[in-house]
């Protein structure tokens, strides 16, 4: 049996319209594995593709050269499919899919998570609603007296941290409960935050650009808080 492993099986079926290049990388891992090919949790599209190729090579064959297909993804878009594998009749097949861009935006990751069911759309909607209603985009005055701005792309980056995504009110909490401001690289500043949430001590940090925009914001533990408190130079409060 040939088994499939690898990445982004959902990628084709869920956002094919954004994909122009797909790489199917066939890597035999074990020579005592027999056909048929199984592509667990992959799409019918890829299954048909590889089955077709396997049929071309014979049921025991794996292509030994890079091969390119032009195919329709079902979204009226032709995609280029390449496959390569060391010559060998048997082995595990790994499938990886890549888009043209080498990276994703935070928004794309969030959308994929929602589509795959790993996070709920309600959580994301709630985070956006909290962001809109709390005035974060207009700026929030932090305890050190300056305005901290969280725009929408900042929000999308910040909610990659699950503990913020599930409780987006924590964004405002981090900003409102900065207890120490320290220097950071390139003229940035790092705010260290501590507050009580339902009897539990919470810690966070925010890295600010010189103009007050938020570069990143996270929930951390006390140990991390102490680590960060040793970095840079304290610039607020300066009366201790």
């Amino acid at each position, binding site marked *: 049996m040939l088994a499939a*492993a*690898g*990445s*982004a*099986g*959902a*990628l084709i079926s869920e956002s094919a319209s954004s994909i122009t290049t797909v790489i199917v*990388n066939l*890597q035999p*891992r074990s020579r005592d594995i027999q056909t048929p090919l199984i592509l*667990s*949790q*992959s799409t019918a599209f890829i299954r048909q593709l590889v089955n077709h190729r396997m049929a071309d090579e014979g049921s025991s064959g794996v292509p030994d050269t890079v091969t390119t297909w032009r195919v329709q993804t079902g979204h009226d878009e032709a995609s280029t499919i390449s496959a390569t594998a060391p010559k060998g009749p048997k082995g595990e097949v*790994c*499938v*990886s*899919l890549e888009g043209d861009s*080498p*990276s*994703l*935006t*935070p928004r*794309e*990751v969030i959308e*994929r*998570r929602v589509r*795959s*069911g*790993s*996070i709920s759309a309600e959580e994301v909607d709630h985070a956006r609603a909290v962001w809109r209603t709390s005035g974060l985009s207009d700026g929030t005055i932090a305890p050190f007296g300056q305005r901290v701005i969280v725009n929408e*792309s900042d929000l*999308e*980056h910040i909610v*990659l*941290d*699950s*503990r913020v995504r599930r409780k987006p009110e924590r964004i405002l909490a981090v900003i409102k409960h900065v207890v120490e401001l320290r220097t950071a*690289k*390139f003229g940035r500043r790092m705010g260290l935050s501590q507050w009580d949430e339902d009897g539990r001590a919470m810690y966070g940090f925010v*890295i600010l650009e010189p103009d007050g925009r938020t*570069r*990143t914001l*996270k*929930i*951390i*533990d006390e*140990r*991390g808080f102490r*680590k*960060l408190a040793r*970095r840079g130079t304290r610039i607020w409060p300066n009366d201790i």
Partner: protein
Amino acid sequence: MAKRYLAFVWDGPERDVLDVLAEPDASESGIVISDAPDVLLFRVLDANDEPTGAIVGVEIIDFLSFDDWDAVPALDVPVSPLDASNVPLRIEVQRLQQKLRAEIVAAATANPR
């Protein structure tokens, strides 16, 4: 369970923060401060909502100029065929840095100000 894949998340040179996330595991993870100043770790959350579990992601601040490659740990979950070739995550991340740098140079060349 959804299929695992490695997501490289970067929204441009302005923020220049890279997140490398083993999906879907990283969708329920929290941040741990590492010893390297520009590297944060995503660990799976435990029952107490604390990030004590497997390393499922890395965040690198100022990615385009980052060079502390030894500070980039291996993830605790296999996520890509490259794992079978024993390509360390830091090598994949270095390759991505080269690609992004090249894209920026190409964009600047195509649209000179």
